[in-house]
């Protein structure tokens, strides 16, 4: 084999390896986190009515009917919603179920009074870089993510959410 070709293959492989390594390290783009401005959610082809978030403290909760901790959080979220809704708090629970039938089956039993939206194509979940189920984001009156919660930890989650909601409502 010609020396030039050998060197070219060698160089190509090295560049390929470097690109692959860099790609694997930076594969996860930055999702939602504190200080992320939540823009227009209409762009994510969500099924359901998305309420106006400006001027209200909003908890966006990503859940699915197949996720036990997500379902365990619903009664507690209902309590939080009923407790703070008159002060300007709202919950938007975004279902990531791929089958609407499963989501409806759970909702028919649970009957939450807060807003439920279906992200059937999981576009918003992808944009938010959801890494744990459930994940929730507390958004202030200006539409900026202030607190992010990963997973559901029962009383501990309720306590911290309660304090954070109060803090944001007082601002």
């Amino acid at each position: 084999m010609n020396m030039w070709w050998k060197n070219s293959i060698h160089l190509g492989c090295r560049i390929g390896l470097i690109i692959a390594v860099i790609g694997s390290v930076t594969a996860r783009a930055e999702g939602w986190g504190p200080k992320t401005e939540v823009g227009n959610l209409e762009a994510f082809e969500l099924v359901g009515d998305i309420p106006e978030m400006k001027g209200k403290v909003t908890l966006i909760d990503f859940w699915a009917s197949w996720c036990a901790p997500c379902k365990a959080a619903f009664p507690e979220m209902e309590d939080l919603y009923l407790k703070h809704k008159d002060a300007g708090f709202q919950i938007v629970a975004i279902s990531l179920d791929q089958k609407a039938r499963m989501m409806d089956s759970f909702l028919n039993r649970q009957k939450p009074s807060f807003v439920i939206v279906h992200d059937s194509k999981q576009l918003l979940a992808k944009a938010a870089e959801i890494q744990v189920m459930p994940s929730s984001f507390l958004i202030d009156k200006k539409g900026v993510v202030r607190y992010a919660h990963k997973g559901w930890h029962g009383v501990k989650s309720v306590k911290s959410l309660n304090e954070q909601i109060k803090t944001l409502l007082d601002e």
Partner: protein
Amino acid sequence: MKRLRISSLSIWVLSGLFLAVFSGCATVEPYQKGNLADYTMRSDRDELASVMTSHIQFSREASTGGAGVGGGGCGCN
């Protein structure tokens, strides 16, 4: 000296090929685990099958137990 160079080149080529082939592996995102969390993914969903499997294992291995791990599940929290 010549043999060493060829070997080094082969390693680089093989590494490149390995990455090219296996970079196609997809990661299941946490919100895509609906099927994995399904009841049908559980290894202990059929009680009779579990008993039979346990009996066969006991006959072959002269021991029993050690199957107390959770199967399937969403791995949510």
